């Protein structure tokens, strides 16, 4: 079950990254959350054949990544993890959409274009979301969600899930370790034991939930959740928001690659 341990470690690694103090980490969490949402909308709003126009949008994750001084390997790994799903979703496109187009002097089926477009869009959106978490951290993100008036209970549930996923993972880990020690010649868990293992885990989780609730109730919890004062919005935060939002709008409504291309061609003519 070392995979489970690894996943838990990976999850916590994002928290460690979020604890750094860089220009990007200091930006108000709400600003980063809004910008990420806006970025996602802009990325997915492009038509599935408009690959070239997506290229300027690569700047956002690249610049944020370098300013936040994050390590490349763990983030790249996390982006790669989702790629098999994306490839699975888009791999049949070239068969279904077999009309041909000419692109850079080459003839392709349009399905290839849509496939590449899905690939780029997914990489950009996953990268932007990962960067948000890696530069903000879950508790600051939760504060931002509260500022957006997301109901307390949802935010509380998110935080508690995040807090206890490691405890649950450790419990699952212990359960599976105990199983595998008494089933030495088996690979994985025999299907006859799935039910009782999952059931055990559920029961342990319920017990744990009960005790956590009791601990909260003893300290005056009545369903209202107070997380302290949110951080203050600074001028720099607003500037950061406005500049990136303006850039996204520009990319969305002006065809920058063609414009640059025609400028270059015009200059060389």
């Amino acid at each position, binding site marked *: 079950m070392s995979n489970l341990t690894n996943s838990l470690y990976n999850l916590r690694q994002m928290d460690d990254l979020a604890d750094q103090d860089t220009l990007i980490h200091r930006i108000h969490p709400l600003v980063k959350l809004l910008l990420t949402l806006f970025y996602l909308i802009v990325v997915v709003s492009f038509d599935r054949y408009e690959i070239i126009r997506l290229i300027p949008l690569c700047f956002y994750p690249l610049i944020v990544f370098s300013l936040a001084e994050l390590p490349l390997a763990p983030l790249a790994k996390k982006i790669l993890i989702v790629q098999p799903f994306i490839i699975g979703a888009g791999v049949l496109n070239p068969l279904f959409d077999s009309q041909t187009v000419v692109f850079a002097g080459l003839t392709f089926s349009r399905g290839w274009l849509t496939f590449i477009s899905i690939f780029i869009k997914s990489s950009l959106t996953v990268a932007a979301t990962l960067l948000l978490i890696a530069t903000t*951290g879950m508790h600051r993100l939760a504060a931002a969600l509260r500022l957006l008036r997301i109901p307390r209970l949802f935010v509380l549930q998110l935080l508690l899930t995040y*807090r206890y996923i490691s405890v649950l993972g450790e419990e699952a880990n212990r359960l599976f370790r105990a199983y595998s020690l008494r089933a030495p010649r088996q690979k994985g868990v025999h299907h006859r034991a799935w039910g009782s293992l999952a059931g055990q885990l559920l029961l342990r989780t319920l017990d744990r939930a009960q*005790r*956590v609730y009791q*601990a909260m109730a*003893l*300290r005056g919890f009545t369903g209202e959740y*107070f997380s*302290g004062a949110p951080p203050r919005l600074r001028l720099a935060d607003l500037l950061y928001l406005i500049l990136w939002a303006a850039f996204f709008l520009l990319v969305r409504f002006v065809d920058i690659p063609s414009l640059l291309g025609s400028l270059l061609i015009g200059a060389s003519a």
Partner: protein
Amino acid sequence: MSHHKVEIQDVHYRYPDGYPAVNGLSLHIRHGESVGIIGANGAGKSTLLLLLMGLIFPSQGKIVIGDIPLSKKTLPLIRQRMSMVFQDPDDQLFMTTVFDDVAFGPRNLKLEEAEVTARVTQALARVGIPHLRDRAPYKLSGGEKRTAAIASVLSMDPDILVLDEPTASLDPQSRRRIMDLLKGFQHTKIITSHDLDMVLALCERAVVVKDGKIAADAPSLELLTQAELLESCGLELPLSLQGCPRCGLSSSAE
């Protein structure tokens, strides 16, 4: 500070499956007293704590904290006076940072944020972990978690501290640190434990629970030296009172 007594009068409790966990238990704890509640597994110690904290209600009998009878209505009042540290600190540390965890209680009391910060700072300083305030609870060691859990109830400024197995699963030095810390508290303390040496060191009074009833109630040194009584209740002499494996002499031998 003169009314922090705890009065348990002929309390009965039966679990929904019919198991009678507490059977007519009565106990009077005076202001400022340190009481160790000991007993074998399943004797009813944990149920007693749940009853005391109002997490479950007795089917018969009465619990009075200070001058306030425990009921659903008086719970908020009682929980401000009496706080409980859970056996597994992971149950108690549910926020993302130690600060937020220690601030959880005061914030629920709707104190001003400045007062909350003051209380958190004070509680962390009291238990000697101000440097851990921004750490995530899951990253702490067992001893640090336990200390943070204690800070998280101290910030509520309680008069009575209830501790469930405070030294369980700690390494010897962490155990010693927690014991030294608890020894310094002036609160009325109610401690359940299987660590009889800790009870001997921290509590002037020990209460043995057996089959949901009080089997013995006496000064710790008097009670914890009665090997026969302890054995009949599923316990044994504290290690410090047992014979030395090399010379066969008990450390208490005269």
